[in-house]
């Protein structure tokens, strides 16, 4: 499917999504509570068949918290990016996509560890790299560690 066809298809499934123009890869901005439904539909529908989650990235913008999903189809080889954001920066929570793509397990654990993003319905949400008793989430913009991080 071409980008245009995918765009049409997504707008048919979920009319409230926002698709910004001029991005190098088709990017779809989805409301957080609708992401799971859309992702499931995109994977299971035979003409899109997005069966491989390449990468899941949490981003702290300072005012909001976002998660990017790079997904591709091994059958048709088309790639798109799903983006979802929340204004609740202190306790951000999204639905886990583990039941759709199992590879999300480690990606989500990493995002939880370093950014403090909670994923609902994740089977085993623990810290990935840091100790269980670590205070704070290092990749957040306001994280401070006067001993280990030298400000220049």
């Amino acid at each position, binding site marked *: 499917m071409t980008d245009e066809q995918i765009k049409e298809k997504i707008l048919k499934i979920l009319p409230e999504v926002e698709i910004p123009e001029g*991005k190098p890869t088709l990017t779809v901005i989805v409301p957080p509570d609708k992401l799971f439904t859309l992702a499931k539909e995109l994977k299971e529908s035979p003409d899109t068949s997005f069966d491989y989650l*390449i*990468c899941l990235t949490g981003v702290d913008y300072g005012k909001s918290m976002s998660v990017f999903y790079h997904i591709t189809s091994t059958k048709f080889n088309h790639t798109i990016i799903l983006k979802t954001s929340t204004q609740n920066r202190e306790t951000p929570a999204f639905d886990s996509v583990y039941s759709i793509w199992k*590879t999300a397990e480690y990606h989500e654990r*990493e995002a939880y560890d370093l950014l403090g993003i909670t994923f609902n319905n994740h089977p085993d949400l623990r810290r*990935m790299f840091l100790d269980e008793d670590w205070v704070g989430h290092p990749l957040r913009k306001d994280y401070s560690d006067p001993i280990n991080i030298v400000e220049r």
Partner: protein
Amino acid sequence: MAEILEVKDIAQQEYLINMGPQHPSTHGVMRLVVSLNGEIVKNVQPHCGYIHRGIEKMCEKLTYPQIIHLTDRMDYLSAHMNNASVCLTVEKALGIEIPERVKYIRTIMDELQRIASHQLWWCAFGMDLGGLTCFFYGLRDREPILDIFEESTGSRLIQSYYTPGGLMNDIHPDFQKKVKEFIKYFRKILPEYDQLLTGNVIFQERTKGIGILSKEEAINRGLTGPSGRGSGFACDVRKRAPYHLYDKVDFKECLYEEGDTFARYKVRIDEMWESMKIIEQLIDNIPEGDYTAKMKAVIKLPEGEFFQRVETARGELICFIVSDGNKNPLRVKFRSPNLINLASLNVMSKDFKIADLVAISGSLDLVIPCMDR
């Protein structure tokens, strides 16, 4: 008085043992907590983070040319490809057209690096399974590649050779001669690897039918690189989303359907042949020209998100940069192929013996610094 357990009770009890953090078969500081029933593996719980250096956090304070030097330290056996991921992302974001000469050299360097990485994997894997001679064979043949790297880039392991827009410096005048000599030598020597290890009955007994992962499971769990291709998952980024000159050269994507440890082994041996084929097609045709495009002194990326998929020796690496228009990125994410491949270890090793766990984790070819970043 403590209750005395009957022998049959003990046999049915699951118990935990620690493999690592210092264990010869993990090839780095990684800890596997293994649930055992007798010697049958029931569950493997990896614990990583022992050498977590916070590279992604450090990147947020550095400029783009500085970031390159950190990426070498992730997957140190695929240093060139790691550099390429950042360089290609920056070039894509700025819309820079890089000289043809750079593309040729980058492709050749990447493939040399892939051969060197697979050689080291081959010798370490052979040693894990008890074939000590493999270790000497592999390291002996890796040496000429490191010499070629040293001549052109100045260092042997972590080269930092690529820069946004081109290369750090031009190749050494002897580069083409040395590479051709190496290819000639290695074409003769690679069949020895098969004679020594591939055909060995003990080796085959220990790898065939061990640690099977189906194609559907491999796609769902994101198992990429030679490990994924051993399960029949056509995940080679060089074919799926070509970069460098991979759309112009002729090579085969090595796929096996079995999904066991032996299939993952065979993919890597075949890839060494394919890499040599790629280098041979390019080495005589390197065009004259600049080794770098003209770049501004301070590189600022436009606002937005940019990513580039790169095939390292272990799987699919993604460099994802979120920029707010400054000279530092807002966020950099590296999708570590090792970390995601590790997630499949639990499924692969379930109901196999503890000795097979060494073979299975060896066949995934894990590099721990890439995992922890």
